């Protein structure tokens, strides 16, 4: 009896150790894939990366091609998207957290936001094509692209802002109301300053998402080949992900190498934004602990 249970225990221990190894290996797969991807892109692209690559316009000849127009297009797009999504997103969050009564309208808005977060980005592209490019007749402009991107990232901005606002302690609000402040005064002077770092973190991450999107912009007709830098919101444009897509889709090896160089630039920008978000969050957390 005891010998049998001892054997049984040994078997259970062995199974435990084997599965521990399996779980560890499974975890490593994702990490190894990440480094493989980064290493591959870096090896292929780094030789093409120089000042001329950053400042030249795209060309039929890979050695003369650059990402200047795509880089400026991305900057225009992100700037305008931030301009639109910040007030609308934060406004929605303030409404839901500070103003709305718990009723059917609030519930509908909240459910709707979580469903919008799961809509494929290409469907937002179709909306942008029908609403902004055609119905509002904005054409294939940066403005139409930025409006489309605003709708795409709004759910992310709203949810992040809501969490930041919810984290402000109720006692601070109560103190403000007790001094006779109105609702808006409380929001503007107490809640928003306290929630600002959290809100900014969320917005930076949302904009990073917008910076990497290609599909919705292809839908609204951002161009594959743009030999000029946009100078107004109504100009046509390209962005880095579309430039990368264009070069990757070509069969010539050289174009794939400069695609890798463009990917390095895109990832560098994204990494900077993510690092800024993390730094902001850490600084804020330290302050909150003090």
């Amino acid at each position, binding site marked *: 009896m005891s010998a049998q249970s001892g054997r049984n225990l040994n078997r259970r221990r062995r199974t435990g150790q084997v599965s521990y190894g399996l779980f560890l290996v499974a975890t490593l797969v994702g990490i190894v894939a990440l480094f493989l991807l980064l290493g591959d892109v870096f090896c292929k692209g780094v030789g093409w990366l120089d000042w001329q690559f950053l400042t030249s316009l795209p060309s039929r000849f890979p050695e003369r091609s650059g990402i200047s127009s795509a880089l400026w297009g991305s900057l225009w797009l992100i700037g305008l998207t931030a301009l639109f999504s910040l007030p609308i997103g934060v406004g929605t969050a303030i*409404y839901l957290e500070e103003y709305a009564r718990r009723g059917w309208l609030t519930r509908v808005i909240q459910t709707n936001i979580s469903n919008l977060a*799961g*809509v494929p980005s*290409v469907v937002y592209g*179709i*909306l942008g094509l029908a609403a902004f490019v055609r119905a509002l007749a904005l054409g294939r402009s940066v403005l139409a692209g930025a409006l489309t991107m605003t709708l795409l990232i709004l759910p992310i901005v709203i949810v992040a802002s809501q969490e930041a606002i919810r984290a402000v302690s109720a006692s601070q609000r109560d103190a403000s109301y007790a001094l006779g402040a109105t609702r808006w005064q409380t929001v503007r002077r107490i809640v928003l300053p306290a929630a600002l770092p959290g809100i900014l973190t969320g917005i930076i991450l949302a904009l990073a998402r917008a910076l990497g999107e290609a599909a919705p912009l292809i839908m609204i007709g951002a161009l594959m080949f743009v030999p000029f830098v946009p100078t107004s919101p109504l100009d046509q444009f390209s962005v880095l992900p579309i430039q990368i897509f264009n070069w990757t889709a070509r069969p010539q090896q050289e174009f794939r190498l400069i695609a890798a160089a463009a990917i390095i630039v895109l990832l560098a920008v994204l990494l900077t934004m993510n690092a800024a978000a993390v730094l902001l969050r850490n600084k804020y957390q330290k302050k909150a602990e003090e």
Partner: protein
Amino acid sequence: MGREGSPLTGEGAALSVSGGRPTPRAGGRRLGEWLIHRLLLLCALVSIFTTIGIILSLATQTVEFFRHVPILDFLTDTRWAPLFEPAHFGILPLVAGTVMVAIGASLVALPLGLATAIYLSEYAPDGLRRVVKPVLEVLAGIPTVVYGYFALTLVTPILRHFVPEASVFNAASASLVMGIMIIPMVSSLSEDAMMAVPRSLREAAYALGATRLEVSTRVVVPAALSGIVASFILAISRAIGETMIVTLAAGATPRLTVNPFEGIQTMTAYIVQVSLGDTPVGSIAYRSIFAVGMSLFVITLAMNVLGNLVVRRYREVY
């Protein structure tokens, strides 16, 4: 006093009288408060208008599309050839391509993601977890076009080395790379659900002599099942809606096949293909992207609603 006296005209005054405290200052303030309340409500309604806009823009063109293509043909025809004569508009090949890539991605992401979640929540020391989690989040933050590049220029050549009959564009490498992309979705949502399982349940199992594996698989995973299932559903929905990987790596040939080494076309890749070409606005091919988009929207919406429902309905509250 002089400054605050000015709003005592027009609506401000009227409001303050109806509001009960007829001081000029409260009246101006109350008008401001009222305006701000409405403005914020307007912001909140943008998301409702977005949904209405999506449905309207898809529906109007889809209805036009079905005037030319019988809906029965759309759902049952086994060929999708919108640019040929005679044109065929059977969505089955596109759905089959989408489902094949989604299944392939799930075969990679669901087991690996769940195992990662179990490791991080039940096995990993605290310091290691603090390193691994952000690294996996980086994986989730990489743009999909970069994954497409990875699939086409690195994974496909390696795959063709081992499976020489695989074509340059194939479903297998797109699925594999997409699976890696959605690992973090599965692992972080599942891990959150497992971390929410109270310690006392684990301690009770350990007290009965269970090994770590037994605690993980017989206590923690069942207790966190609703969160895990929801993470699976949301990840699959994401795979169905993903566009750039399949556009770059899976090909542009709609085909009813079960062979993952052939080129196929997904619903999303078709939508992109049409908008890349110069299809005239108003033609049937142009309208077909709205019909396909509508199908995509309905499928992903159903899955997301289901996922959220699973979380809310079956969540164990401790």
